[in-house]
Structure formats: structure tokens, C-alpha cells
């Protein structure tokens, strides 16, 4: 049986009361989402707790500097170099860090390679965990209730929403990101890409193909 600290009578740090909507502190903020953010930013800025220029910097990083191009470089190298592919599936965190991709929401990475036998797909049913240093900020659909609810139960029907259909004898492995391990799907290398450079290969690697809801582009597509 599980340890019980007598939680019914104590209130550990950070333990919530369960309140009605209107009892939560957030209900004091303006209801309009944009005004709500603005209000919070203003309050925190006035007190010196946040610096608007730091916010600009955070946004610039995730808007312009960190995104699926990072992950695509990893996949392209794995396609081009069997030794790298092997090292990647053994200890992705280390080899990806060597490529310079590491940081918040990407401290622990596992790479899972698709085969004819098995297709991999990544979700976070409990929130929206995602490998930020490799893929950037998760797209809206990844954070949607529909994806979180359905991906684990009916991955093929979800793939159909993306226009993807798998061969009948391909099994699906859905990775639910319940801890701090982040998953990168290595899609299968498209046919007709023999001899292509890593850079050209990387251009075929779509964001969705690294989540498992898409397939890479065909060359010339």
C-alpha cells in the first residue's frame, strides 16, 4: 500500500483548495484573453518581476531560431549515416546535444525509428509535452483536446485526419509523454533519395513526420 502522510488533515505546500471558478485568483483578471495577458504582463513589469525586453527575446527565439529545422537536421543525418542512426537510437540525448540541440523541454530525448513493421506517433495526453529544442513550440492541433483524447485510442483515425494511411500490416506505437522524456520520430527515408545531401534530405523532413502524424515529402514533391 502507498505511503500516506495523512493528507486529509494537512495541506502540503502547493496543494490546492478546489474552488468554484469565481474563487480562483485568475478570475480577477479581465476575461478577454489578450487583455488578460496584457494585464498580467503589466502588473509583473511594474513590480520589476519581468522585463518586457526579455519577453521579446523569448518570443524571438521560439518564433525564429528554434523550430522543426533542428529536428530535420537530426533526421537527415540519421538517414545519411547509419552509424549516427545507431548512436541516435542508443542515446539520443547525447548525440543530439553534440549537434547543439539541447535545452528547455528537450533535456531527455529518445529517438524512435519507423519501420515497415511499426509506425511511431507521439502525444501528451495529460498536457502537451513536446521536444521544444528539436521542433519548437507545439502546433495548435498537438495541444487540442481532440488530439490528446484520440491519439492513444484511435491513432489511425487521427492519421486519417492528416490524410495519412498506413499499410494494413503496420502496427502503431503511440508514445504518451507522461514524464520528462521527449520523443522524436525518425520517419522512414523516402525512396528515390539515394545520394542526396543531408541538406537536401532535411528539406524532405516535415514537422508532422517527426511527431508521427505525417510522412516525409517525396523528392521533387
Amino acid at each position, binding site marked *: 500500500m502507498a505511503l*500516506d*502522510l495523512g*493528507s486529509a488533515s494537512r495541506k502540503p505546500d*502547493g*496543494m*490546492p483548495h*478546489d474552488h468554484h*471558478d469565481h474563487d*480562483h485568483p*485568475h478570475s*480577477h483578471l479581465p476575461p478577454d*484573453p*489578450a487583455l*488578460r*495577458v*496584457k*494585464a*498580467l504582463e503589466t*502588473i*509583473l513589469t511594474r*513590480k520589476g*518581476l*519581468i*522585463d518586457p525586453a526579455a519577453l521579446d*527575446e*523569448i*518570443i524571438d*527565439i*521560439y518564433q525564429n531560431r528554434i523550430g522543426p529545422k533542428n529536428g530535420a537536421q537530426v533526421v537527415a543525418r540519421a538517414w545519411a549515416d547509419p552509424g549516427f542512426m545507431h548512436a541516435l537510437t542508443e542515446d539520443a540525448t547525447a548525440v543530439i546535444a553534440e549537434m547543439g540541440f539541447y*535545452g*528547455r523541454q528537450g*533535456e*531527455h530525448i*529518445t529517438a524512435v525509428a519507423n519501420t515497415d513493421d511499426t509506425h511511431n506517433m507521439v502525444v501528451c*495526453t*495529460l*498536457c502537451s509535452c513536446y521536444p521544444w529544442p528539436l521542433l519548437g*513550440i507545439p*502546433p495548435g*492541433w498537438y*495541444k*487540442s*483536446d*481532440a488530439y*490528446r*483524447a*484520440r491519439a492513444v*485510442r484511435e491513432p489511425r*483515425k487521427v492519421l486519417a*485526419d*492528416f490524410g495519412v494511411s498506413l499499410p494494413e500490416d503496420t*502496427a502503431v*506505437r*503511440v*508514445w*504518451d509523454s*507522461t*514524464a520528462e*522524456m521527449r520523443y522524436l520520430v525518425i520517419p522512414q527515408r523516402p525512396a528515390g533519395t539515394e545520394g542526396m545531401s543531408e541538406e537536401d534530405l532535411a528539406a524532405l523532413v516535415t514537422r508532422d513526420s517527426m511527431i508521427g*502524424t505525417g510522412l516525409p515529402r517525396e523528392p521533387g514533391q
Partner: protein
Amino acid sequence: MTRVHDMGGRFGDGPVDPAPDEPVFKEDWHARALAVTLAAGALGQWNLDTSRHARERLSPKDYARFSYYEKWMAGLADLLVEKGVLDESDLTGQGDGSRHPLADRALKPDAVAAALAKGGPADRPSNVAPLFVAGQAVRTRRPSANALVDGGHTRLPAYAAGARGHILRLHGTHVLPDTNAHGLGEQPEPLYAVAFPASELWAHPEHPRDEVILDLWQSYLEPA
């Protein structure tokens, strides 16, 4: 389920919209919401598990109606008050605007890139020895619940509670969210990838060989 965020396997949500041309931030306020949350987190008054729990314990009605970044904003406002960084008068605009004692810790623009690149790894040395080996059959606890704190944070989804699977691999020893979210320490313990046949989780699995893999802490598991 423990809370309404625990939606894996739920019916009724309709199609997924792939929206292929969506920008990174669909609205300007999405970008600001993300940045405010990260910058406020840098004050060091809570950890990631605490902030996840702050979103999860929004009322079910709020959780259902709020968009993603609205949940972030609501969770952040609740945390700021709960941790005593702000008080409710601040949120209503009646607070005083003088410099805050924590202002020295504010994230500076030139420290942003390094802070994001540094991240916050969750692996820790632990004196809890692994009980399971790859291939071993295990069963998850049922109900899915925080064993220490009634209604507390946990990372075992309800859809996998009481399910039989097998150990795929050991990830090492990681901070336990069930304690860390509640100021009860990091209590690191072995974390495993555990594979469950889809037929163990769903009444109508799509394919006989489908699997769902979850990362689960040792205390969530027992031998099966």
C-alpha cells in the same frame, strides 16, 4: 480520472484540424502568454510539476472552455497569488507598483538564451534501486491518483490505471512529480518506458499489434 485534464481515450472531441499553415504563434497574445509564463517561472518560486498542477486544477468548466494559453495564464495567476508573489489586489489593479523583493531575480534579456539552453534536467541520483528489468510484466496502480496528496498531481493517466504491460526500458532515476509538485521533495526513483497492448487499454483497439508506451515511475507499478 483524477481531474478533467486526464483526457486520454475520451470520446466526443471530433476531428483533429492539422491547420498546416498555422504560424508558430497564431495570436500575438499567445506569444506574450508563453513568454510571461517562462519569465515568471525564472523567478524560481515553483517548479514545472507545480505549474502543470496549477493548470490541471482549474475548475473543470474553466479547463474545458479555456484555450491552451488561457489555461497557462489562469494557472500562472493562481500560482503567483498562491506563492505570495502577488496578492489578489494586484490582480484587480489595486496593488502597489513598487519594486518587488524578488525583482533582483527577474530574467534579463541577455540571460534568456542561456536560460532556455540550460533547461532543467529531471534525472537525479537516487538510492531507490530498480525493481524491474526490460521485458518484465508489470501492472499499474489503480486508481490513478497521487498516493500522498488527495487530489494531488500524478502522471499516471486514468486510461492506463490497473493495466498490464511490460517494461520496455529503464530511463534512469527521475524526479517524482507526485512529491515535487507539492513541495514534498524531488524523491527521485526509477522511471521506465512501459508498453501496453492497445487491447489492454481499449475495448475496440484498431489493430492487434498496436501498443501505447508510457513513461511511468517505479512507485506506479507492481509486478504482474
